[in-house]
């Protein structure tokens, strides 16, 4: 809750949530929408809202259709709780972002918050971002409308894909009430091949070779810290260990050191995930061509930054000292985009977290905001271009 919050609401039904939004916007009030509160600092600092609507009591797993590998989750369901339930049926939602906030140890991240922020983890290599796993969505708009889009089946092209529009929209179009998701089988076994090197170019070469190999990796990550880095390739399936040994062969052939395979790899990946957050420094998410990886690692090294990322997707999470952020941003590879996630207040005040320039795309986004939230009630000022 912000210092000026006068009302913190925790609606228990869709209707209650929608009517709160409607009432607030009719009164000319703005509303801060939130889930588990693990990413509240992300985005730009907008005007303080006096009303907060939290999804904590919208926390039912409405459906888990084991035979169809689908589920319907209310927005406030903690992903950790949902995964536990899916795992009992040998299934998972293939979405593994960090579940805690920077500096916290509680896995409070909710499915609504994860989808609204578009956050993901190492499994994004194979399964993509939340937008790729969400089949349908129910949302509340600021005029009180409750609208559904998509469906509950894994294949469906009826109507506009509003779920994709709301995924990553940071609650600026309305409140996500529930999401319909596609599930995947939980792997029967996993194994990870890894190798290390002090040369960013060598790591990039190894990552490229792994991306091109027909190994069907579930995750392909890089890590970099203090002049040395590693590449990690995770295989999942009945023959995970055999395949990981082949991946190790690819890494070896690329000339990396300390090449090995482990089938007790959960901690390795937990560490990769954990380094997508920073308590004391700035955390910048960079999206660039995969082939710019070497260049990005070199720029990070010059700025004393540490990096984890999805080598083949071109997504990197760079932790950099607050004083070095501006210098690092100036060294990004051509064509890269970046978003500031965690950062101390002074960095946040000095640098636009989004870095989106005016142009036709931003203009179109403003028109979308104006159509879905004409009152400007939902999370004002938080998003790109002051949306």
């Amino acid at each position, binding site marked *: 809750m912000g210092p000026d919050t006068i009302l913190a609401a925790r609606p228990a039904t869709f209707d209650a949530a929608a009517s709160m939004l409607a009432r607030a916007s009719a009164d*000319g009030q703005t509303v801060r929408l939130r889930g588990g509160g693990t990413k509240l600092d992300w985005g730009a600092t907008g*005007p303080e809202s006096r009303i907060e609507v939290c999804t904590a009591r919208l926390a039912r797993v409405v459906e888990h259709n084991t035979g169809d590998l689908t589920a319907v989750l209310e927005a406030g369901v903690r992903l950790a709780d949902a995964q536990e339930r899916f795992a009992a049926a040998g299934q998972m939602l293939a979405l593994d972002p960090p579940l805690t906030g920077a500096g916290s140890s509680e896995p409070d991240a909710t499915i609504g918050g994860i989808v609204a922020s578009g956050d993901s983890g190492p499994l994004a290599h194979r399964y993509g971002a939340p937008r790729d796993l969400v089949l349908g969505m129910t949302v509340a708009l600021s005029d009180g409308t409750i609208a559904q889009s998509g469906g509950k089946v894994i294949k*469906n092209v*009826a109507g*506009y894909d509003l779920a994709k529009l709301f995924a990553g929209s940071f609650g600026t179009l309305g409140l996500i009430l529930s999401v319909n998701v596609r599930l995947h089988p939980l792997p029967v076994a996993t194994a990870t091949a890894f190798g290390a090197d002090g040369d960013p170019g060598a790591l990039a070469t190894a990552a490229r070779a792994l991306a*091109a190999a027909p190994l069907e990796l579930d995750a392909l990550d890089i890590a970099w810290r203090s002049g040395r880095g590693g590449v990690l390739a995770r295989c999942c399936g009945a*023959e995970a260990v055999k395949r990981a040994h082949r991946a190790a062969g690819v890494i070896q052939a690329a000339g990396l050191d300390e090449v090995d395979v482990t089938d007790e790899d959960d901690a390795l990946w937990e560490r990769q995930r954990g380094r997508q957050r920073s308590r004391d420094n700035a955390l910048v998410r960079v999206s660039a061509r*995969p082939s710019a990886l070497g260049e990005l690692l070199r720029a990070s090294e010059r700025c004393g930054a540490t990096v984890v990322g999805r080598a083949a997707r071109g997504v990197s999470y760079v932790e950099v000292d607050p004083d070095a952020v501006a210098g690092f941003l100036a060294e990004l590879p051509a064509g890269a*985009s970046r978003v500031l996630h965690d950062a101390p207040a002074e960095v946040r005040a000095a640098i636009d977290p989004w870095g989106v320039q005016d142009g036709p795309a931003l203009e179109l*986004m403003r028109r979308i905001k104006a159509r879905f939230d004409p009152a400007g009630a939902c999370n004002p000022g938080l998003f790109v271009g002051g949306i």
Partner: protein
Amino acid sequence: MSASALLSRLAAVCGEEYVLTHPHALATYASDGLAQYHQTPLAVARPGSVDEVHGVVRACFEAGVPWVARGAGTGLSGGALPVAEGVLIALSRLRRILSVDLDDGAIVVEPGVTNLAISRAVSPTHFFPPDPSSQIVCSIGGNVAENSGGAHCFKYGFTTNYVTGLEVVLSDGTVVELSDDAPGYDLLGAFVGSEGTLGVATRISLRVVPVPESVRTLVAFFEDTSAAGDAVTAIVSAGIVPGAIEMMDRLSIRAAEAATHAGYRLDAGAALIVELDGPEEECTARFDHVMEMCSQAGARDVRVAQSEAERALIWKTRRAAFAAMGRIAPAYYVQDGVIPRTRLSEVLARIDELSAEYGLQVANVFHAGDGNLHPLVCYDSARAGEPERAEELAGLIVKACVEAGGSITGEHGVGVDKKRYMPAMFSEPDLEAFQRLRCAFDPHGLANPGKVMPTPRLCGEVPGPYREHPLERAGVAERF
């Protein structure tokens, strides 16, 4: 701008020979793959470059004339049906592959490039997974508009999962670059599958993936579709995600076998094609398990492709299923519905009931992994009233899909053909929310009007976004 002024402007943009107005020339474009709908446009413009597309759209905007973009015209929902007083923009001349960068797993193409040409351009190491059965001729621009799937989407996903960037011309002529990972709203995700109603894509960036190392294919024959459905359930429940898993029923087997002579068993009530692809060791380990599960579900006969030629033959029969229906009936109506896979037996039983009630044969071909049914409703146009009854029956099948928790379309799109079924799936507030998106992109309703939405709607003016008043900020005044 008068119609003749618009035509001169189009000719100035594209060149005289690329603006068609003669009735015979226009007739070619009156229908897409769904021939029961036809409409002659005012003109057909065939721009030869991205700049010319911009010019055509701009000219239409200034004339206040609607337009419809068309790729190869293979769509099955009337999505590329022209508008009477509008311009049809045919993109077939825009077929350049602009760049291929396999290090980044990326290819950039113009919208008229065929789906198959993309996989060819990145072969032999990579491929583009969405593979609609029209892939030899259908264009990527059309795939983007329809969010096309195909036989491999249970494992690999749809077009939307592979588009990384688009250059789009909006209906006012503005050119917008959309990217899958740029900060901001996922405009790209909203655009893919919007059936040409939000604008026209003029440059398309795609992700391609490594060709699987190993492919193992079998066809299993069952007593009936219910037993084959049990095999699918067993396979999926075992955590196996086949590259493709396709089912044909008795009638479609009979028609397709007559066309291909591939050796499908004519006494079988269902054929199930299962294809595993991926790393060698994984395929081998899983394939034996799949064969076992087919047998346990009661397969009478399981045939494994021993060579690429045998694999091709198994697929040839599946791919021939639609066209081969001509051997059974003079005409047929292809339906496209989706159900939760676990409701298969129940929905097929309902289709059988409807078929008996209407006295019309229905053959079933489906993408069994994702519950996408393609019932083929057979009829004879020479018999009075039969086409109408076939259409009615096809409509009831779609409704049965929705009632089972599914969708009115899995891959063919809504277009004009299915817009009347949209209210079965979406409430008025849902449709109203769709319209908000539409109006943000195309406030004048010029891009492919009359498609997707069940009733014509106009875009109202948007009230200005709420802005804090300076007095409010200073705490001097409050809003009530």
